[in-house]
């Protein structure tokens, strides 16, 4: 268990900047998810925390101790890799044992830890199987057991669920979080899947192009995105982003007009599908469009509209809603839930004018 601090950590490969000056504090016992598209530097950051990669600049502290130059094994980290990598030629039992091979623990303690981990992850019937003889979910549990017998200072998980099918991912998500909370071990989980990030993380660190865009609780990230990138990356169905301009106390984009209190200039209006409604085509201050598709989600439906410029807009509607492709409609955002982003991609701190 440990508190982890990254201070002004940087990683360069020649001219390429993989991670740009990063400051990050991970609280003891926290489940931190690092979220971002591929190539954003999240895995590089994880590797630096593990000690598999050394930063080009900056320091890493575990519980206040500088571990920047310490090897992975000596940092006592445990890592679960993509596709739950195990040694393919060893049985589950030997795979788990290999985690403790290079430690000075007495044999009785090793045996106790292994028995405990095997019991927790219900691996008894599989101990003598090879990884190739097990299902994806079983391999995942074996890789987790291999990680927890170390009683590590931190768990590092590098997209461990990405190769599994959807149903299995769903059940393993809660299983992993539940285990982490019971053990109370700090965990860093890397993923590009925003649903995984939202459901598993105590906090989420969103990264893009080597930079930390925002760090916060799932609620903060979702409801108060710091930038256009974060707003667009999180949420399913995704947020509608409408480019336009602020002038005379109003955000305008074509016929659409939303009252705002912000300095004039180009801006982007963001509104989540649940905060927009369909309006009559003729009504003023809405965005005219045609119905492009209707997606049924069961509890609700998503209407996908296409405006004249070909931009797709999404609106959540009642499941009983009916529309035909090509029908005329208009999008009316709820002004009290709209967000504004400036030309630099950052969210404008200024509040929207509350509609009377």
């Amino acid at each position, binding site marked *: 268990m440990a508190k982890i601090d990254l201070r002004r950590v940087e990683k360069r490969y020649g001219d390429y900047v993989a991670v740009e000056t990063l400051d990050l504090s991970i609280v003891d016992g926290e489940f931190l998810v690092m979220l971002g598209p591929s190539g954003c530097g999240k895995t590089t950051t994880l590797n630096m925390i593990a000690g*598999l990669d050394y930063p080009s600049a900056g320091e890493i502290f575990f519980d206040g101790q500088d571990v920047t130059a310490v090897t992975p094994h000596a940092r006592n980290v445990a890592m679960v890799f993509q596709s739950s990598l195990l040694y393919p030629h060893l049985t589950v039992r030997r795979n788990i044992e290999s985690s403790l091979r*290079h430690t000075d623990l007495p044999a009785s303690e090793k045996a106790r830890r292994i028995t405990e981990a095997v019991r927790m992850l219900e691996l008894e019937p599989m101990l003598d199987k090879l990884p190739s003889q097990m299902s994806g979910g079983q391999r995942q549990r074996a890789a987790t057991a291999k990680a927890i017998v170390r009683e590590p200072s931190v768990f590092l998980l590098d997209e461990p669920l990405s190769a599994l099918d959807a149903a299995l991912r769903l059940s393993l998500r809660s299983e992993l979080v539940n285990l982490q909370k019971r053990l109370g071990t700090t965990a860093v989980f890397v993923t590009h899947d925003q649903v995984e990030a939202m459901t598993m993380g105590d906090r989420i660190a969103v990264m893009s192009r080597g930079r930390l865009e925002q760090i916060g609780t799932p609620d903060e990230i979702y409801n108060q995105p710091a930038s256009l990138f974060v707003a667009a990356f999180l949420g399913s169905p995704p947020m509608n982003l409408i480019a336009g301009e602020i002038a005379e106390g109003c955000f305008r984009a074509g016929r659409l007009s939303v009252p705002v209190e912000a300095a004039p200039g180009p801006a982007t209006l963001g509104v989540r599908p649940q905060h927009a409604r369909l309006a009559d085509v003729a009504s003023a201050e809405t965005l005219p469009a045609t119905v492009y598709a209707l997606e049924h989600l069961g509890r609700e439906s998503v209407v996908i509209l296409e405006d004249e410029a070909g931009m797709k807009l999404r609106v959540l509607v009642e499941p009983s809603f009916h529309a035909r492709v090509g029908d005329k409609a208009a999008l009316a955002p709820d002004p009290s839930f709209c967000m504004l982003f400036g030309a630099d991609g950052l969210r404008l701190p200024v509040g929207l004018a509350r509609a009377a």
Partner: protein
Amino acid sequence: MRKSGPWLTLATLLLLIWSILPIYWMVRMAFLTPAEITQFPPPIFPTRFNIASFFNVLGFDHTLADGTMVRASGQANQVLRGLVNSVIVAVIVTVITLVIVVPLAYVFARLEFRFKNLLLNAVLLAVALPPVSTLIPFYAMFVQLKLAGTLTGLVLVDLTLTVPFVAWMLIGYFRNLPPVERLARIDGYSRFGTLFFLIVPMAKSGVAVAAVIAFLFAWNEFTFALILVNGTTANTLPTAISGFLFQNPQPSNLAACIVLTILPPGLVAYFLQRHVAEMSLVDPVR
């Protein structure tokens, strides 16, 4: 499982005849008496198993059932020495090849470093060269170095063939192994520990096949042996046998010798066939 139709059976039979028939013809000849060999049409099956030739080539006289004594072959000494030399050369070449190639192939397959492609091409160039092209230079060099006519010289030459060829084969095999290196570092394995305790056991089929190939290469090598060691005390079995062609031809002795020659590779292939079959799959372990 694939369905086996009549065509598949037919093709398999054809292939079997193609590969087995010449071997059968040769083995059969080893059991014939000189009189039977000169018969026409030749007997397809030996009427009795006459093992005199095997005794003769190994230096023993043998008395046939009818009381005739068949004398030991005059070349028995050559054959015996060739057998011993061949075993020595093949075993040493196999061991040295593995010691060099396993780390070499691992480094080329799994690590990134400067001039990697250039160095790899340098290693593999030797596979593309026909051995004959280096025959004269090697001979000239070995005469000066006093390595001509020695087992050491032959081992060195064999290594120039086996190392690049086996490296080429193993690099491809190592590339397909799952990426366990980072996991190994977390578990506290050193680079050497990863190679010897994880990669080699994971790749045991590939390493076994590499050993077989090196062994067979050295065992069968004829061209260099003919030029560098033939007629000396370092003679190997294939060149010793070729002597039967020229001096006082004795077909049954020649055949008996060849049977002795193909026996060890045959046994090796038989005991390692499981690994060879596994090697042919693109994805080795997963």
